[in-house]
């Protein structure tokens, strides 16, 4: 197997028809496998079945079972063997079938995947992508809807990213595969079927960068993954209520893009963070804490968090009570101590 050193950008799927997030990720994997012979894809049901979300659809047939294959059913085994493969020259992309089913791999992720580069003073890098479909909103039963990002973002040595749209999903996944660092790649399940007409490309923000997806003047709404769409909806509704919301899609949860986000918050003077995970020690705590540290005197009100409640993910019939929606985002916005109403209102 020879080493392919082409840059990711050289193999691109040009698409000018609507493509879903799942479809865009599928193309990203296909293009990554095409671009670099060292890339391999394995996990549970990623072969002939194409993954339970079809993100690996067709790849086993196209690249053969030495590049894309079904492993035995054991998540610690999947991550642990991926580590060995990366030590020996491959660039594995593995799938955890659902968020909560990554927990058996927690030791391998925390004590090895995150630390091998550090342990060996940079001699052994682990360019591995762990793909994890995460979050709720799809009517899944327990263990199928966890938002587990903090378990990874708190672990130094991992990059953690999540995508909100097909075009960004494509770009981020290509960048993740090309990253020399291990990447936890979180895929918001409930956006798998959202479609977008796009030209798939790797240009755009880099792996560690946030982006302002809607400019606004009154409040910065910080979201990621599945809640970016929620934030945008809040911005649309909020507009009629006189609030001009700026929406930031973090993309990279670790590291955090201080530059982009503090610039926005200093401009608006107010911020709300939105995520599905439980609020307590959730990712929003870090966002609120670090932005308050950095922007204290620019803030007119405390940064508020709109999150899942501090409970285990609820059963399907109650999940919409739990998930932040545009209404809850706007509720938080309205509690941001507007002495004279929103600025542009």
């Amino acid at each position: 197997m020879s080493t392919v050193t082409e840059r990711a950008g050289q193999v691109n799927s040009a698409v000018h028809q609507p493509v879903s997030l799942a479809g865009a990720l599928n193309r990203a994997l296909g293009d990554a496998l095409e671009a670099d012979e060292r890339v391999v894809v394995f996990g549970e049901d990623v072969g002939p079945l194409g993954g339970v979300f079809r993100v690996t659809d067709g790849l086993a047939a196209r690249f053969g079972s030495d590049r894309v294959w079904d492993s035995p059913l054991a998540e610690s085994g999947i991550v642990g063997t991926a580590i060995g493969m990366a030590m020996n020259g491959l660039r594995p992309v593995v799938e955890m079938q659902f968020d909560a089913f990554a927990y058996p791999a927690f030791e391998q992720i925390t004590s090895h995947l995150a630390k091998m580069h550090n342990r060996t003073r940079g001699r052994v890098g682990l360019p591995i992508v762990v793909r994890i479909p995460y979050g709720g909103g799809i009517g899944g039963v327990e263990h199928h809807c966890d938002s587990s990002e903090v378990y990874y973002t708190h672990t130094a040595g991992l990059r953690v990213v999540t995508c909100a749209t097909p075009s960004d999903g494509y770009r981020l996944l290509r960048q993740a595969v090309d990253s020399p660092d291990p990447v936890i790649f979180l895929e918001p399940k409930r956006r798998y079927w959202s479609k977008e007409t796009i030209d798939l490309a790797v240009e755009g923000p880099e792996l560690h960068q946030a982006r302002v997806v809607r400019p606004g003047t009154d409040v910065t709404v910080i979201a990621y993954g599945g809640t970016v769409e929620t934030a945008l909806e809040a911005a649309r509704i909020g507009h009629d209520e006189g609030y001009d919301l700026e929406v930031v899609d973090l993309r990279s949860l670790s590291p955090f893009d201080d530059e982009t986000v503090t610039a926005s918050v200093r401009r608006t003077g107010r911020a709300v963070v939105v995520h599905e995970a439980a609020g307590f020690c959730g990712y929003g705590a870090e966002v609120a804490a670090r932005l308050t540290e950095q922007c204290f005197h620019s803030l007119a009100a405390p940064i508020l968090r709109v999150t899942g409640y501090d409970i285990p993910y609820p059963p399907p019939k109650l999940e919409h009570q739990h998930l932040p929606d545009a209404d809850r985002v706007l509720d938080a916005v309205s509690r941001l101590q507007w002495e004279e109403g929103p600025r542009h209102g």
Partner: protein
Amino acid sequence: MTEGWLGLLPSEGPVRLIDAAGVATGDGTYELPDHETLVALYRAMVVGRRFDAQVTALTRQGRLAVYPSSRGQEACQAGTALALRPQDWLFPTYRDSVAVVTRGVDPVDVLVNFRGDWHCGYDPYEHRVAPQCTPLATNTLHAVGVAHAARLRREDAVAVVLLGDGATSEGDTHEALNFAAVWKAPVVFVVQNNGYAISVPLHRQTAAPSLAHKGIGYGIPSTLVDGNDAAAVHAAVSGAIASAAAGGGPALIEALTYRIEAHTNADDASRYRQDDEVAGWLERDPVRRLAVFLSSSGVFDAAGFDAEAEGLAAGLRTRMGTDAPVSPSHLFEYVYARPTAALARQRADALDLPVGGGATMDGQEPGGRGIR
């Protein structure tokens, strides 16, 4: 190696007491269960299959969030559930609704999970049935713990845990078998080897002669049975329970069977298996096999059981026809034995109730527009 140790290995072919044609094999390993037991097994399988078919239909109608069918595995599930004594514990997976129903849990309570109302709809203590477990293999350890506690408390109870062929690959299965053996815990592991873990066939899951060959590596006696022969499953599980209850320690049983439906209603089995494979297994149907045997061996009123099964299905249609009310306040009530102050505030927020003390925010009144 001494003969004693070799005795831990399973037989080369599966134990079978009644063959696919409905004829007793007289294979000598176990005694054929008595007539009454065989009739009970038949009844449980007929009722279980009807239950399963009805639930599959309800799922197609969109009344359930998801359903993993037991079809084809009735002999394993009824055979296991009926082998338990009242004081024994059953640890089922998502796949084992027929076992749970056989054990006596109200079918509608079983469906609470699949309907999406709550994670578990029954009281695990009522019939000594643990919640149906989704994270694979994790329940094997719980079963060992229950069994060991029974031993420590000098209680005559055995725990029986069901798991799939795929689940045997998880580390927890290994740890459970090992803890059970070292502790001589009264626990019986019943692997329903249905040939697939979702789409992944057995040969990509293991290279062992059989899954039952794992037993010797823990010092656990192992048995391979025809999982479509309810008599064999019942005999093997009963034997293992009796031995465990007598202080003989754990047992591992592998039951060879097949999942006739797709993994769940959301799965597309045509992507990974051929129709003729399914057809071959339909030939070995566990229900028909026992019907033939019972019909040929004496008084046996099959029609009565069909009627009972239809009654259950009709009852299910009625009771599942309307949505049970679900209360958002439940979200906050069971996280801890008593809700924490923070949860009480979140509950009040979510339900638009007045906040009863606790944390408030500087510079403004709590509340806002209320969160629905």
